[in-house]
């Protein structure tokens, strides 16, 4: 084993900064229990995340691996480190108002958010199944707690419990898969697995079972049908800011790992898993969309829609290497538009004991122009209407699928996005074509307005001028 050098430490500077910020949040929180939670801690968290993003840009894609080949220091990991910082910052910007509203002045909220971001960063830079597992668990445990944070709310407690139990199951599946891979290959490094498989292999039971278990583990984590059962309840029950975070960051982290493990390391054995993944994709898109049609709560609808989006992304994994950049682009676009949509939902849910029913949206667009316009952009982007980021993401993923010969799969995906149009449009019609249901006057907190405008402008900007981001993702994709 080589002694560690400065390069090793520099490469993990972004992670380190996030962890340090988290630790300081805990320290500061215990110093002035609760009182600082309204603004000092969020401000500090944003600062830490910004520093982490800056560090990630500074050490952008130094190339290769560090820590004896267990951690990637490539452009792809840098790109997602920045994305996770952005997701973290936006989530933090939405949080203080919501936490105050729900009487949750909890400093540990921010610490947990930061550790989850740390876990996600480890997941995307892992070059080894066990390092990935460490990241996965760090992230998951933080999320289990975050999901259950609204202790007084039965649904939140249930969400945390369900998430914990099913999440542990999936971790166990995954770990079993890792063990079997180790037994077959003799290593858990992605590179070693890839080299072993590329050298020619006999599909013995141990290998097949290992691949299958890894696939199941991943399918759980990205909430692919039929391993999605935990997600609607967890998404629905968790505090809304946490749901916004969960449907974007962790999903992106899992997909990047999916690319690295299945798309690259297990690529030589693709005949073992392509069919299974194709069916997963088809089921995930279709079930997600069809069930989303029948939801009575917007939050739950977005939960199912996020399942559908995972399906579109799986299409990209099936399409193979040419789609990796597309998946990267899609994940970034999805993070921005979904966070934006959730931000609006959080604001709409302003009344005591109010749910997330569709009726809450009546007439909102006319009374709150900023909210209305940004929401229309987010929803059109989720639908995949040009010239938004969401359209380009879909176009890019589906065209990669057609280019790699999976025309049928692409058509299923396209038809599915037409189904999705219905439930997204429903919100637009409610916002603009119905009279408000009672009093809809409320003021949007300033941090919200900034966050909404930032994500809206970005969604339009990378939709109209996708070239720069596209090039960046293409260059950094594995």
């Amino acid at each position, binding site marked *: 084993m080589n002694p560690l050098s400065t390069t090793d430490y520099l490469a993990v500077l972004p992670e380190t900064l996030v962890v340090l910020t988290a630790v300081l949040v805990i320290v500061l929180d215990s110093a002035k229990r609760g009182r600082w939670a309204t603004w000092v801690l969020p401000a500090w968290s944003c600062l830490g995340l910004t520093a982490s993003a800056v560090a990630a840009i500074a050490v952008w894609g130094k190339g290769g691996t560090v820590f004896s080949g267990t951690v990637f220091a490539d452009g792809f990991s840098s790109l997602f480190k920045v994305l996770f910082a952005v997701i973290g910052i936006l989530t933090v910007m939405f949080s203080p108002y919501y936490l105050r509203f729900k009487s949750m002045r909890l400093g540990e909220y921010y610490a947990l958010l930061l550790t989850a971001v740390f876990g996600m960063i480890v997941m995307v830079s892992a070059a080894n199944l066990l390092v990935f597992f460490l990241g996965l668990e760090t992230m998951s445990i933080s999320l289990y707690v975050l999901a259950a944070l609204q202790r007084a709310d039965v649904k939140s407690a249930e969400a945390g419990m369900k998430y914990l139990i099913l999440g542990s199951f999936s971790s166990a599946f995954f770990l079993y898969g890792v063990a079997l891979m180790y037994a077959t290959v003799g290593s858990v490094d992605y590179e070693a697995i890839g080299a072993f498989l590329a050298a020619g292999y006999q599909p013995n039971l141990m290998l097949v079972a290992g691949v299958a278990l890894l696939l199941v583990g991943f399918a759980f984590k990205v909430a692919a049908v039929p391993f999605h059962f935990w997600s609607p309840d967890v998404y629905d029950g968790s505090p809304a800011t946490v749901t916004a975070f969960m449907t974007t960051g962790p999903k992106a982290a899992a997909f990047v790992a999916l690319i690295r493990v299945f798309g690259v390391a297990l690529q030589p054995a693709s005949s073992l898993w392509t069919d299974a993944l194709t069916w997963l994709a088809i089921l995930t898109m279709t079930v997600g969309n069809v069930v989303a049609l029948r939801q009575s709560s917007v939050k739950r609808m977005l939960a199912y829609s996020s399942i559908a989006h995972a399906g579109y992304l799986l299409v990209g994994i099936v399409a193979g290497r040419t789609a990796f950049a597309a998946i990267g682009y899609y994940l970034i676009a999805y993070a921005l538009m979904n966070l934006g949509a959730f931000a609006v939902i959080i604001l709409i849910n302003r009344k005591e004991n109010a749910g997330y029913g569709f009726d809450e949206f009546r007439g909102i667009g006319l009374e709150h122009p900023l909210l209305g316009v940004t929401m229309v952009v987010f929803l059109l982007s989720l639908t995949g209407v040009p010239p938004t980021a969401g359209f380009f993401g879909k176009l890019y993923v589906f*065209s990669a699928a*057609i280019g790699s010969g999976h025309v049928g799969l692409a058509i299923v995906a396209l038809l599915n996005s037409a189904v999705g149009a219905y439930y997204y449009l429903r919100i637009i019609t409610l916002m603009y074509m119905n009279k408000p249901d009672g009093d809809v006057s409320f003021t949007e907190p300033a941090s919200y307005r900034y966050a909404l405008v930032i994500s809206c402008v970005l969604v339009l900007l990378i939709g109209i001028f996708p070239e720069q981001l596209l090039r960046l993702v293409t260059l950094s994709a594995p």
Partner: protein
Amino acid sequence: MIISLLIAIPFLTSLVILAVPRTNAAAIRWIALFGSIAAFAASLVMYAQFTPGEAGYQMVERTPWVASLGIDWHVGVDGISLFLVMLTTLLTMLCVISSWSSIKDRIKEYHFLFLLMEAALIGVFCAMDLFVFYVMWEVQLVPMFLLIGIWGGERRIYATIKFFLFTMAGSVLMLAGILYIYFNTTDPATGHHTFNLLLATEQAKFPMEVQTWLFLAFALAFAIKVPLFPLHTWLPDAHTEAPTAGSVMLAGVLLKLGTYGFLRFCLPMFPGAATKFVPLISVLAVIGILYGALMAMIQKDIKRLVAYSSVAHLGFVMLGTFALNMEGLSGSLLQQVNHGISTGALFLLVGVIYDRRHTRLQADYGGIAKVMPVYAVLFLIVALSSIGLPGLNGFVGEFLILLGAFAAHPMYAVFATAGIIFAAVYLLWMYQRVFFGQVTHEINLGLKDVTLREGLVIGTLVALTILIGVYPDPLLSRMQPSLNLLLSHFQGAGITQTLLP
């Protein structure tokens, strides 16, 4: 520059409108009017610059947009799109004027959406890049969706969602087709795949089976938009619920996107498959003609009657297109413009009495020719042009279409001719019930005749009806070279059905 300018003017105007405070309604109206007049003026410049004898695209512009994917901002205009662009700018301008008094709330959003839609519509007609085409195609959908949904009638939400979903469902498969073509088109200059329409048309030499699938993927999107029977069910709902100006644009321009799509994509790219589908589409077109006319006959609501008459008229257009000869094609293209003018005028006319009485039922009127003589005359001319009276524009188009259809497949033409008779029946019956006889309702005695503004708007369209009816040559002479080029794809594919040289 002129084409980009033509798209930029309404787009920038819509942005300016966004910046004006919502309380300042007058400023918003004036800006919208100014913007739409400027766009119309630009389209006149385009017309002046257009060289009649040329078949290919003119005033072409091309700048890289997403270079890594072979997407260019690539626009131009040829004989097929020239008059459709002019129709768009003309109708938008007239609609802005006619909305002056009929739109009273949310004026800012209304005009913003209207001009945004104009920009996108011009974009669809001028796109020479498949990607640009698709983007514009989808973008024009959103403003219309909101226009119907916000300013529409009572069942507007049902109608607008139906409209959006029908169109969206059609266009996703077209996207799959576009992507497939993309992967089979290579730019010789760069060696990469490209969305360039010219190269795509040139290189589209697909085997018959692939052609069939691609044709169907495109044709579904276009047939829904046309709308071809039995995909027409969204249309009466959308038309009935839309505000007057929305109906005008919907019938005048949006339906043409479908027929234009057939001319621009389905025929030149997949000539083999197009020929194969001639019987199916012609039969559906004839059914549309007869069914639309019969449905129009039994409508109590005048606007619904006009909506169903559109189904019939568009059936003629499709029949002419799929005659696949010069007469049919030029008739169908001319008829697209004619339909935009006549039906646009009809919707505006219906809007006039609706603004006054807030009802569109034939039974609520009767004998109003006595109280509104100018209105009655305008209505009569437009109705007669819609029926296809010689000397008015509808006749020229329908005559050419039937001529082409006879040359290609006499049977279809025989049935289609019956449609003309039906059109006379439902329009004249309606006219008689609404205008002739004694005034049946007291309240109608107080109806005000058309105002100067209404007269100006409708009068412009009536003048065009007569002008084209008497002297269609400026249109036909500009259309035909491009249509000839289109037909050459069929001659290349071994299909010749041309009656005249």
